[in-house]
C-alpha cells in the first residue's frame, strides 16, 4: 500500500471524479488496506467484506465528484462510504448467520493506532469522548468499531435495550455539543 498524504489522496479523488482510471487505481492502492480493515472489522468475513469493498469503490468512483476536501478528509470520506455499506450488509438478514462463525478470528482486524495518524480531528473527538464516563466511552467505541446493532450491543453489555438506547443517544448528543462548541 502506498502511503499518500491527505492532499495526495484528495488530488486522486478529484482526478477520479474526472474519470481518470489511473488515478482511481492509485487511490485504490493507497486506501484499500485501510478501508478493508474497517469493513472486515465490521463484517468479519472475507467474502462479505470483499463484496462490500467492491460496491464501496464503485460508489467512490461514482460519487467522487461529491467529495469536498474542505469538509472531510479523503480517508474519512471513503471509510464512511464503506462503513455505511458494510453496516447495511451486516444488517441484512442473511448476514446474521455469519455471526455464529466469524471467519476472522480477528487476529487481523484490531486497531492499533499507527503512529502519526493522530490528527487534530481525532484528538478533538477523543477529547470529547473522553469526557464521557468510561462505560459510555466503551459503549460508544464498541458500537463504532464493531457496528453492532442496539440489540447486539445491549446483549454484549448486558444492559436493557432501552437503557442502552437512552445512554447511547445521550452520549452522542454530548459529543455533538462538545464537538460543535
Amino acid at each position, binding site marked *: *500500500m*502506498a*502511503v*499518500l498524504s*491527505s492532499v*495526495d489522496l484528495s488530488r486522486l479523488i478529484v482526478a477520479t471524479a474526472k474519470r481518470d482510471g*489511473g488515478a482511481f*487505481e*492509485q487511490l485504490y*492502492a493507497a486506501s*484499500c*488496506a485501510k478501508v478493508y*480493515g474497517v469493513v472486515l472489522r465490521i463484517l*468479519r468475513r472475507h467474502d462479505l467484506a*470483499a463484496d462490500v*469493498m*467492491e460496491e464501496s469503490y464503485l460508489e467512490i468512483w461514482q460519487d467522487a465528484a461529491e467529495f469536498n476536501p474542505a469538509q472531510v*478528509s479523503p*480517508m474519512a470520506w471513503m471509510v464512511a462510504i464503506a*462503513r455505511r455499506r458494510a*453496516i*447495511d450488509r451486516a*444488517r441484512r*438478514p442473511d448476514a446474521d448467520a455469519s455471526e455464529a462463525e466469524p471467519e476472522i*478470528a480477528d*487476529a487481523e*482486524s*484490531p*486497531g*492499533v*493506532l*499507527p503512529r*502519526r*495518524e*493522530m*490528527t*487534530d*480531528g*481525532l*484528538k*478533538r473527538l*477523543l*477529547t470529547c469522548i*473522553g*469526557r464521557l*464516563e468510561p*462505560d459510555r466511552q466503551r*459503549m460508544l467505541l*464498541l*458500537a463504532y*468499531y464493531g*457496528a453492532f*446493532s*442496539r440489540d447486539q450491543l445491549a*446483549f*454484549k453489555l*448486558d444492559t436493557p435495550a432501552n*437503557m442502552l438506547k437512552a445512554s447511547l443517544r445521550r452520549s452522542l*448528543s454530548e*459529543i455533538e455539543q462538545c464537538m460543535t462548541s
Partner: protein
Amino acid sequence: MHDIVKDEDLSALAAEYVIGTLDPDERTRANVLLEVDEGFRSLVRAWERRLGELHLMVEPVEPNGRIWERVRGRLGLPAAEAPPPFTPAPPPFVPPPPPPFGAPAAEPVRAAAAEPKFEPKFAPSFEPKLESSVESMLEPKFDSKFELPRAPQLEPALEAPAIEEPAPEEPSSEELMPEEPIPEEPTREQRLAALIREADKFSQPRTADTTTTDTMVEPAAIVAEPQVDIAAGSQTDAAPISQMDAAAEEDALLKEAADAIAAKSVESAEPPETGKVGKPAPEPVPTKVEPWPTGAPRRDTMLTPADLARLTFRTQERRLETWRAAMLFMSVVALGLGSLIAAWRFVPERLPMRLQPTAVLGLPDLGPSERIPAQHGTQFEE
C-alpha cells in the same frame, strides 16, 4: 442543541445511523430517509465527519487482489500495468509505483497484530463461552503489560499508513506530524490501542464484573466514585514503570496537543474527574485513555482490591435498595392498618360494609349487634 424535538430525534437518528446501532428496520427506514431528505442527509454527513477520524485507529488489512480486478472489470477500466508513479507532494516517504495491492506497508502491523494480543477480542463474539471469557480475563492483562516493550515493532509500519490529516490544514499538520517526538507517540498509541481493545474486550461475557449493567444505568454520581477507585487501584497494579513513563510523555504530548487544539489548560492528575468536570480540552483524551490500559487488569476483577471494593459497593447498594423497598411497603401497610383501626374506632358508621370490622375480621355479625344493644341497654343493667 436543537429546539425542536423532532430535530433532536433526527439528529440522534443520524448519529445512530452513522455509528451503526440502528436495528435493521430502523436502518432501512433511515436509508430511505437518506435518499429523500436533504436535511437528514446533511446530518448524516456531519456525523460522518465527526466520527470519521475514529477510523484512524483501525489497522489496515490488505485485501485480496481480486477485488480490484472486479472493480476494474465493472468500471471497464483498462488494466494499467504500470501507472505513472505518483509523486506525493510533501510525502513522509516516496511511495513505490503502486502495484495494485502489494502492501509492504501494512505487513508489519499485521504481523504484530497477529499475536495473541488480539485474539480474545472477537473470539467469543456472542457465545458466552467460559473458556474464552477466562482467556479474555487473563490475556489482556499480559498484553497490556507487554504492550509498551512491543511498541518499537509497530514503528516501521506506523510510518506507512500515516496520511490522514484533517483536510483543512494539511500542510501544517503534515509538518507537525514528523516533528512529534518519537518516544511520545507510542504511548498515546498504546493507550488508544488499549482503548479499542478494551472496547472489544468489553464485548466479551464479563462473568466477574457484574457492575456493567449498573454503571450503564445509573447516573454519573454513583459511577464516579468507584471509577476513581479503579483508576487509583489499577494504577498501583499495572506495571508502574511504564505507567510513569507514559504519564510523563503524556504530559509533553498534551502540551503539544494543547497548542494544536487551542485548548485551555493541561493538568494530568486525576483522570476521570477532570474529564467530567469539564474544561481542559486536550486532556480528557489521555485521561480517559489512562484508566483503560490499566483497566485491563480490571478484567481479572477478583484480584483488584479496588474492584472488590466496587463490587461490594454495588452489592451493598443493591441490598440497600431491597431494604428500602421493603421498608416503604411495610410503612404503607402499617399506615393503612392504622387508619382502618382509627376509622373503626371513630367513624365506624362511615365505613363501607366491606371495611366493617365484621367483614374484615370475619367476625360473625353478632359482635356489633350484641354490643350496640348492650350499650343502649340500660335495660341490661336494669
